[in-house]
């Protein structure tokens, strides 16, 4: 069996990042902490995708597809949020309108 070292190292790295993320949320939550949590999630997801899903050895086309999908997710999230950053929801006016 070849190439077992890389996934095991990736697994260890994953656990370290997970530990760091949980430590931060336990002792220093708040906006900065949350940003750190999300960054950790990105690192963990990348570790799984690169080492367990073979994105490292995949051909370029698959990488383009993976990136494109992430971009589409960003479009959906970004343009939807364009609405919500300029609008307040859940106000009492809305509630009384349906009551």
């Amino acid at each position, binding site marked *: 069996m070849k190439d077992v070292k890389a996934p095991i190292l990736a697994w260890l790295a994953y656990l370290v990042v997970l530990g760091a993320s949980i430590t931060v949320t336990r002792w220093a939550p708040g906006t900065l902490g949350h940003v750190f949590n999300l960054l950790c999630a990105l690192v963990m997801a990348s570790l799984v995708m690169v080492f367990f899903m073979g994105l490292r050895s995949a051909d370029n086309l698959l990488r383009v597809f993976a990136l494109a999908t992430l971009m589409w997710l960003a479009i*959906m999230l970004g*343009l*939807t949020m*364009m*609405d919500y950053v300029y*609008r307040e*929801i*859940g106000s009492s006016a809305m509630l009384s309108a*349906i009551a």
Partner: protein
Amino acid sequence: MSDDAASSRAPESYLTHGWRWRDWLLTTDHKRVAWLYTVSITGFFFLGGIAALLIRLELMTPQGDLVSADIYNQLFTIHGVVMVWFFLIPSIPNTLGNFLLPLMIGAKDLAFPRLNLLSWYIYTLGGIFTMAAVITSGVDTGWTFYTPLSTQFTDTAVIAAIAGVFVVGFSSILTGINFIVTTHKMRAPGLTWFRLPLFVWANYATSLVMVLATPVLSATLLLLIMERLLGIGIFDPRLGGDPILFQHLFWFYSHPAVYIMILPGMGVVSELITCFSRKTVFGYHGMALSILAISVFGFLVWGHHMFVAGQSLYAGIMFSLFSFLVALPSAIKTFNWTATLYKGRLIFASPMIYALSFIGLFTIGGFTGIFLASLAVDIHVHDTYFVVAHFHYIMVGSMVTAYLGGLHFWWPKMTGRLYPEVWAKVASLALFIGFNLTFFPQYLLGYAGMPRRYQTYPEDFQILHAMSSLGAGVLAIGYLLPLGYLLWSLRWGARAPADPWRAAGLEWRTGSPPPPHNFLKPQTVSGPPYDYDTLDNPQGEAR
């Protein structure tokens, strides 16, 4: 289809290859699956058409006299759900696309033939289930299932209907995956991307949209089901939820879905125009790239459905701007089709009449789309018959016309038979006239203030409504005629040669109908597509 007659004519074709039930229902041949789809979508089309006919009959008079208000709501829901999800979305990709994609790229089949069959089963069974639910319980939300009407107020079987649409979505997804992989991995040697027929480009772009947008619809419908079935309020204003979020997610799918419907039509028309102008298509690269551009821009514009729904003004401005952007690639395509006609040796065969109708109707539908993309104008015409007319010009005027044009063009290839050309010309003209008579008055109605989804209206509107209903009758003739003579041609039509139109493209380089694995020997490609100059002048003499 006459089995014995076909087999008497020597070479074996996919049609002579077994006629037991399982030869059709368990086939993995993309050409036979295409037929399964053709039968299914034709059934759904006429079902949706009956609902439309009842709607138009009701609207002959200002009062609600033919059906009750509830039934009227159910009728336009049936019409919308069937036509959008069970006819328009699968129409060209799953019939003509399924049949032609492997042929056009010189492949033996799609990359995943069993998946292709599975997707037909999902589609047909899901469709029948949805129809049963919608018709027996009378779902009355419209095809858009807006919350909180669909979650809190209606007492009809919304869950069953949504579950059906959810399931049918997987059919789209699987087809999309299949087409993308096929286009990437199965092309014949020498068939580079910029030698692909535009129909293949169009189906590829359509598949991208199917793959990226449909899952979001699935997610949205799933949340809706959870809210209604389990009481998990996601869009529930009582908990601080936002019903407009449903519209965001819904239109993130449903606007790109409009391009799922129109892009394959553009592909078909590109093939027809160039063949019957006996000229290569004008600006091939621009055509191919504008197809891709439409499919990408199509994802940035969904908010133009929500200008008056309460979304923030800044989002509205942004979505309005992006919507104007879609006009650019669409205009490129329209101009290029026109430029292809210029100085061509035009042949007015029936597929060409359909294609020319497409250009005209698409232009009108596209222009009025720009009106609707303008924030201020939209406030005036939002949810009126102006909108109804606009999207029918795109979806019926353009898409159904392209579908019928393509069906006529490739009919000899699919069946090995020729259809009666005179009747086809009559049908194509009936479609054009009937369509305009039905829907042009609706622009006027909408601009004058007639809201959509209303059963009754002021008497002033009756003349226009009556014209529209009359047009619907003519339109119905335009649909029924082809059904009749195409079926007739299956048995009594003249035998088709391999290439009846003297058309370019790999699909014409094999028998009509093609053998089971499409080509008797592997194909290679060495030149650009649509090389009609060489085709018509093999010696290379000057035109």
